């Protein structure tokens, strides 16, 4: 359904040019050049080992590329570490839940608040008065996000005690606290009960309507069809096809690659 909303005149927010990553003799990502439009959900699909997560890692800054560049909002971020890309608005989530297990759910969100004075040594020396107002505002935002995701009742739980589905939601909520311009989502619905998966889908659509751009790596093609304005198909580290889900479904090449690998 969202294929209809694909607007090619949207400004480009992310550009990769010739992005390549090798692990030993294996080329995991092979000269991938793509453009992501602002305000869209761009899906990345492909068989296991196609290089989807590696591509996400390269864009997020978790892996250094062997060659190629990543530009985000016009700036070359290829050499920036992950935390600086995140501060610039490029925030990722992980395939395996990476919650802060021994911290409460609300702390997991609060810690993601950007530009916290209380996290600096200046804030330490100045004391509580320097950061308590920012903390109160962050708490308000965090609680609003928890309400939005129907997780308000888990505020005081330790994140490590949440169910698998709740952890996936927490991951998305925490990323939102970091005030992203663009989210890189690595299989946010993997291993999640279908009802929770549908909730995640709804939330992602809402976030897109709020203006957040997303790259979504996902295996479940139904979800990809429902969510993504545009889909990139990868196989053996290369971009095989790029278009709307409707366009791709007619491509034998894509079907072969996906089914046969």
């Amino acid at each position, binding site marked *: 359904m969202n294929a209809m909303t694909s607007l090619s005149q949207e400004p480009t927010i992310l550009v990769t040019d010739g992005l390549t990553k090798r692990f030993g003799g294996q080329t995991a990502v092979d000269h991938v050049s793509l453009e992501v439009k602002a305000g869209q959900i761009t899906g990345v699909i492909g068989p296991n080992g196609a290089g989807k997560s590696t591509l996400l890692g390269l864009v*997020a800054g*978790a892996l250094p590329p062997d060659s190629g560049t990543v530009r985000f909002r016009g700036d070359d971020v290829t050499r920036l*570490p*992950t*935390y*600086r890309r*995140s*501060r610039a608005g490029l*925030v*990722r*989530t*992980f395939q395996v839940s*990476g*919650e*802060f*297990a*021994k*911290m*409460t759910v*609300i*702390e*997991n969100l*609060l*810690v*993601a*608040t*950007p530009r*916290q*004075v*209380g*996290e*600096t*040594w200046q*804030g*330490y020396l100045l*004391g*509580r008065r320097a*950061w*308590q107002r920012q*903390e*109160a505002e*962050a*708490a308000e935002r*965090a609680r609003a996000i928890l309400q939005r995701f129907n997780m308000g009742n888990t*505020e*005081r*739980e*330790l994140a*490590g*005690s949440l169910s698998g589905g709740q952890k996936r939601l927490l991951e998305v909520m*925490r*990323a939102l*606290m*970091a005030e992203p311009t663009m989210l890189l989502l690595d299989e946010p619905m993997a291993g999640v009960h279908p009802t929770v998966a549908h909730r995640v889908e709804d939330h992602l659509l809402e976030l897109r309507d709020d203006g957040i751009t997303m790259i979504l790596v996902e295996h479940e093609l139904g979800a990809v069809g429902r969510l993504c304005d545009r889909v990139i198909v990868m196989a053996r580290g290369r971009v095989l096809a790029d278009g709307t889900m409707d366009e791709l479904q007619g491509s034998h090449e894509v079907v072969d690659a996906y089914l046969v690998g």
Partner: protein
Amino acid sequence: MSIGAQFYVTTILVYIGIDIIACLGLNLQFGVAGIINFAFIAFQAIGAYTAAVLALGPPFPGDFQHYVGFGPLPFPLPILIAGVVGGIASLVIGVICLRKLRSDYQAMVFLVVSLIATTVATNTNLVGGAAGLSTVPKPLYSNLGLTLVGYQWFYAVLTGVFAIAVWLAIRRITNSPLGRALRAVRDNEHSAQAIGKNVQALRLSAFIIGGVIAAISGALLVLFISAWAPPGWLYPETFVYFTAVIVGGSGNNLGVAVGAMLVPVLFLEGARFLPTVVNPTFIDGMQWVAIGALSLAFLWFRPIGIFPEQARGPLTDRRGGQIERVRALLVRAR
């Protein structure tokens, strides 16, 4: 109280204070920031040697001990400078060890650092070699004009003042967004990076502050016992502090203070009262076995320690965001 009993009590009090200071430093590194610093004792030794050398002044011609000396400097400069030197050493070692290594490998490297430090101190004349340093003057001893036992009480109070200052300084970190960021780094460094945390800078900060505190604890100890030598800070000593932190409750300052009283002081001190069996070194040997067993027992049956880490909400909430313990107790950490 007899003079002998007063000596014993004050000595125990000083040790409790020093061990609490050391354990709070280790807790910031290990319990809060997740750094497995198996070289912790070496930083305590750096502080001790620095304070000793600065209090002693340069060796005189024909001196029985050989070391590189400066000073002598008046109290409290040897302690404060020891802290600074501990911080600088932590910066240098932290930059080398904390970057690009996973935490389990960091632990191995720290163990090696501890071994190297002992080897260097033992086999050079930088700080007295294998014999170490002795006759370190007690701070303010001649100025105060106290009796020997009066001075003991003075030193116990002095250690208490330092312990309170360190406690307050550490609590200001752990009860702030900075402490929260450190705990996030401990729980999952990749996620912390993904939400914009400079993991290396945060870890290094905690490591340096822990190093400063370790050095201060060493300085206080050497100025009290007047001597310091390599056999007193071999790498297993680090595990006594680790056991104290684990038993008390890693990540909980109060728990760690209790752990410091229970393990290095009561546990080791208590062994003195056991009857001598087999041979005199048997009890000493068994202490190490007992420390290891205690540590294992807690890791196995109660990894959260006696006082588990406090679950928190927003720091602006009542009681600094601390949530009642019951809930935290129900959930065993992963």
